[in-house]
């Protein structure tokens, strides 16, 4: 039996409409052989949690460029928990100051990718940390 591909949900929480980065990451993960679902813009934490549950996602990646990464990540983390999505690793990408990384990790965020991250960084992290046996 062939191994099932890693499943990744990329989501845009809140009202930020800048999605170039989210879509670029989606394509990079897809070309690396993963199953990728992109939510589109302006999704509520509940909608993101529902999509993550339906996909049975291994990884949920949030793209946030507006600076609202702390309140938005907190709400999404809570919604994921409430929806019973406990296995998926939570990633945050966007314009994230280094000093906020600790606060994001305390919210349960497994990794943060800033604007200087490369696609290769993201792909290899997901591959290594998607929570599947190699």
């Amino acid at each position, binding site marked *: 039996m062939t191994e099932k591909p890693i499943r990744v949900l990329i989501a845009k929480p809140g009202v930020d409409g800048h999605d170039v980065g989210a879509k*670029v990451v989606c394509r990079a993960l897809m070309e690396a052989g993963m199953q990728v679902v992109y939510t589109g813009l302006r999704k509520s934490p509940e909608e993101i949690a529902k999509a993550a549950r339906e996909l049975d996602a291994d990884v949920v990646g949030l793209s946030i460029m*507006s600076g*609202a990464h702390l309140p938005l990540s907190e709400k999404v983390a809570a919604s994921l928990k409430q929806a019973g999505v406990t296995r998926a690793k939570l990633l945050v990408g966007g314009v994230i100051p280094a000093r906020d990384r600790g606060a994001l990790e305390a919210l349960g965020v497994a990794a943060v990718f800033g604007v200087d991250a490369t696609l290769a960084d993201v792909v290899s992290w997901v591959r290594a940390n998607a929570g599947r046996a190699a």
Partner: protein
Amino acid sequence: MSNPKVVWDSGIEIAPVYAPEGAEKPGEYPYTRGIHPLMYRQRPWTMRQYSGFGTAAETHERFLFLIKNGNTGLNVAFDLPTQCGLDSDDPMAEGEIGRVGMAVDTLADMEEAFAGIDLNKISVSLTINGSAVAIMAMYFAMAEKRGFPLAELRGTAQNDILKEFVGRGTWIFPVEPSVRLVGDTIEFCARQVPHYSPVSVCGYHIRESGATPAQEMAYGLAIACAYVDHVRARGLDVDEFAQGISFNFDIYGNLWEQIAKFRAGRRLWAKIMKERYGAKNPKAMQLRMIAGGGGAGLTVEQPLNNLVRSAYYALASALSGTQTMALCSYDEAYTIPSEQAAKLSLRTMQILMTEVGACDTVDPLAGSYFVESATDEMEQRIVQVMQKLDAEGGVLTAIAEGRVQADVSRQAYEHKQRVERGEIKKVGVNCFVDDEPSPDVEFHPYRREEAEKQIARLARVRAERSAAEVEKALEAVRAAARDGTNVMPAVIAAVKAYATVGEVCGALVQVFGRYQEPVRF
């Protein structure tokens, strides 16, 4: 400034225009060389830095700072809830109030932001799209209350919804009613606010989303044609309204490619307006633009390098004959500019304008074998992209189906890969990299208490206004939306009764529904 003599230190006197006998001159159709005969020798470009954050009171202070330092226009940034038609007390607005721009809920905010600013002297551009009818209505209502008659009011609204479906993403209604609302604003302004530009068509954000410069110009012109077609179908002649359509383009990347893009785009727009639409009024054929920005060219690595990049972008913009310029500040790759960074952007333009001769003569590159040839080839490339769009069913369908979005996003991916592989060089990113890591990004402080103040202010306005009057006014908005009457008069009446942005957009959603995004990447 009215064309004073320009004499160099060496004694050489510089003419406003150089052109051999019989050659195209600036201010002449098809305007390759610029839309005015004397361009910057008569009047330099308007400097209009993008700004706004927090509450109207905070933004007002930044406006005064910019004006004091020589900004000759204002380019207003609104926060994301305002741009998406949400009030500050909407649950989706939480954490975003006043973050990337000024929070506006009601006319009271608009009044506070512009208090004491002479709207005849400072031309104001509103960067607003999805909720543009509400925000434009508030601006008009505010101006009238301040004693600036609409018949004389100048300024611009971005109000280019079609590009929002491709990049930027502040859409609210489906594509068709969205275009109808843009049409309502164009028609309303043609009749009542004739000196105002109700639309600034943006190639800018499509380029930032991954398009090439030729595609940027092609998509921009195609989108402008879509608005022109829509308004002509209402029975208006292009000579009555097309002068209200202006443009917003991006500058980063190759200097010469940008210059060729602008010269070619200007010529092509004039030809389209004259040949396809039968324009006779020169103003309807002239491509007026704001050109600058260059956000996608800036880097978070070695951020001071962005100052140098911006200076070159400004030079490209001036050599391209722009009407208005705005530069991204060196810290704008990651935050709202600090006062110092915003001032340096202004100084960059001022040095170009006053010290190094960018205004000496009109279209100084005209006649260069290289630039003229690049301009001609660029025009052909732009035409090819526009013809392909038309052959595939037109720009409206291409956007509604998400095809343009998918194309530019694939290109953005390829670009990013080429940067990562080092095929496209970026100083400080993949060459001339510092040993030590870049300093942490310094954010504009976000103050939660300002957001709370805004919510309290909104509650106060809601309590003080007449609920019955607001409901009646909103019903009139719904009625106009339903029966196809121009919504602008009803929206202006509603905001004068202190209806909120969220209420006006909500009333329109009840009639038009919401856009369902075709999710493609």
